[in-house]
């Protein structure tokens, strides 16, 4: 295992908004099939780091590699050339993303939400896209709601539909940005169940979350971030059960 190249490699990622630097050089490796949970207080840079991976945010320094491919740039003669939009789109298409506020398209039904990108980006025929979508929606327990509009669904149902939308692109990596933070407490479980199934099927996942129970149970690695740095990383048992860093300890004492 150790010999294989990590699927995701972050090297020295720095990001600043104006003069305020929110990421101070982050390194991270995630191997295929692993589930990495990013934990930490609000404003520690977790979401920004996640958004750098599919180039929704452009890092001010550092490299993002997914599947060995540099994201957002082509490196030639010691310079970074910005990739044309078409190439960045192709890179993003292989990385699914799930947002805190679902961001389903409200003017489309659940099914239309799921088939939109496979048809427009992958060029699948409608029947192929629909068949895949119905299969995925069945797997996330949304078979009965395929023709509903997002507005008529609960938060948990919307988030499960959003996960199916991401999976419909057959991604090699799924990013979750606080997927249960906007949900009513009784709906958190159904979304975590879907993510647990996904992990069991071997999907590579990076999950920004405050759900310590999920991290402990599902994660292969947990990374704790504070002030734009990963200060502690390891197995859930090590990081959550026996934290060595003082900041990790104080954070965990507040959330557990």
């Amino acid at each position, binding site marked *: 295992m150790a010999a294989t190249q990590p699927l995701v490699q972050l090297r020295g990622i720095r990001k600043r908004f104006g003069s305020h630097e929110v990421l101070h050089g982050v390194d991270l490796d995630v191997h295929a099939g692993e589930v990495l949970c990013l934990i930490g207080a609000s404003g520690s840079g977790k979401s920004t780091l996640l958004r750098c991976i*599919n180039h*929704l945010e452009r890092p001010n320094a550092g490299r993002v590699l997914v599947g060995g491919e540099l994201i957002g740039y082509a490196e030639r003669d010691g310079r970074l050339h910005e990739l044309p*939009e*078409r190439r960045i*789109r*192709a890179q*993003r*298409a292989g*990385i*699914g*993303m799930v*947002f805190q*506020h679902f*961001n*389903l*398209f*409200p*003017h*489309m*039904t659940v099914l239309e939400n799921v088939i*939109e*990108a496979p048809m*427009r*980006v992958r060029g699948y025929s409608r029947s192929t896209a629909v068949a895949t979508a119905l299969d995925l929606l069945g797997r996330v327990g949304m078979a009965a709601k395929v023709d509903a*509009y*997002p*507005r*008529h669904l609960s938060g948990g149902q919307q988030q499960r539909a959003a996960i199916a*939308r*991401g999976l419909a*692109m057959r991604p090699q990596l799924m990013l979750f940005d606080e997927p249960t933070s906007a949900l009513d407490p009784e709906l958190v479980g159904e979304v975590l169940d879907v993510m647990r199934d996904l992990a069991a099927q071997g999907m590579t996942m990076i999950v920004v979350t405050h759900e310590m129970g999920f991290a402990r149970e599902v994660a292969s690695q947990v990374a704790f971030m504070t002030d734009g740095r990963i200060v502690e990383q390891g197995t859930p048992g090590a990081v959550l059960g026996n934290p060595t860093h003082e900041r990790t300890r104080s954070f965990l004492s507040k959330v557990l």
Partner: protein
Amino acid sequence: MTATSVRPVRDDGDVVVPRRRPWRWVGSVAAALVVGSVAVSFLTNPNYRWDVVAGYLFDPRILDGLFTTLRLTVVSMLIAAALGLLLAVMRLSDSRLIRGAAGVYVWLFRGTPVLVQLILWYNLAILVPTVGFGIPFGGPTLWSADTNALITPWTAAILGLALNEAAYLGEIIRSGIISVDRGQSEAANALGLGRVDTFRRIVLPQALRVIVPPASNEAIGLLKYSSVVSVIALPDLLYSGQLIYARTYETIPVLIVVCIWYLVIVSLLTALESRLERRLGAGFRSTVGDEGPRNGRWARWLRPNR
């Protein structure tokens, strides 16, 4: 008949005595008096000359004018929509120069009366005797024409109305675009959709919900203020009527005919708008009690059964 059958009874059998509302009665009587006296005047005042109104309602000159007004409105509105979309996208650009150019356009065309703009366009030949295009700054001319031949009352009217309307529509479209949550284009980008698909498939359909009500207002406004083209002698609905009563002195009956036609067209446009809003409202209605799109009080008031 018992008393309970007349008064409202709640489910538990308690009788509810309604509150007295004396001012509602006063208001109703006043409204009835006003409506009644107007109706009586309509029916009994011989100066309305309803027989003359009926005679001119389908007069070929009036109908020609009506079609000119309709063509003028539709063509101007289509050009203005395309130009307005361009202006909206320019104003949202990252380039300060592009934003500025669109801003100056809106400032100029919104800041001067459309009547003045019309007269200026009609007299364009005085300012630029020939128009053409070619390589600028002294290069060869590829095509040119005499301005006087190009600027007819019709082209001047279209230019004046469309360029003016574009400034207003541009602002309406821009406000519609920025009303769509940023998360929508982020989700589309994360899925790998390109800029054009993201705009056309995701942002625009949602923006249209916000754009359609004020844009319909603009269309109705344009239909009516297109009557200013009478100053450059284009025979639209109003000017055709004016041409008739200038000879026959049947001023009031002919103007009533003109008003009837404006009212008919505005009613049709309003019905069209309601249908359009209903279609764009897909996904935005609550399941209980289909109230249609919830975009502003006046849109709800226009809706047929409330």
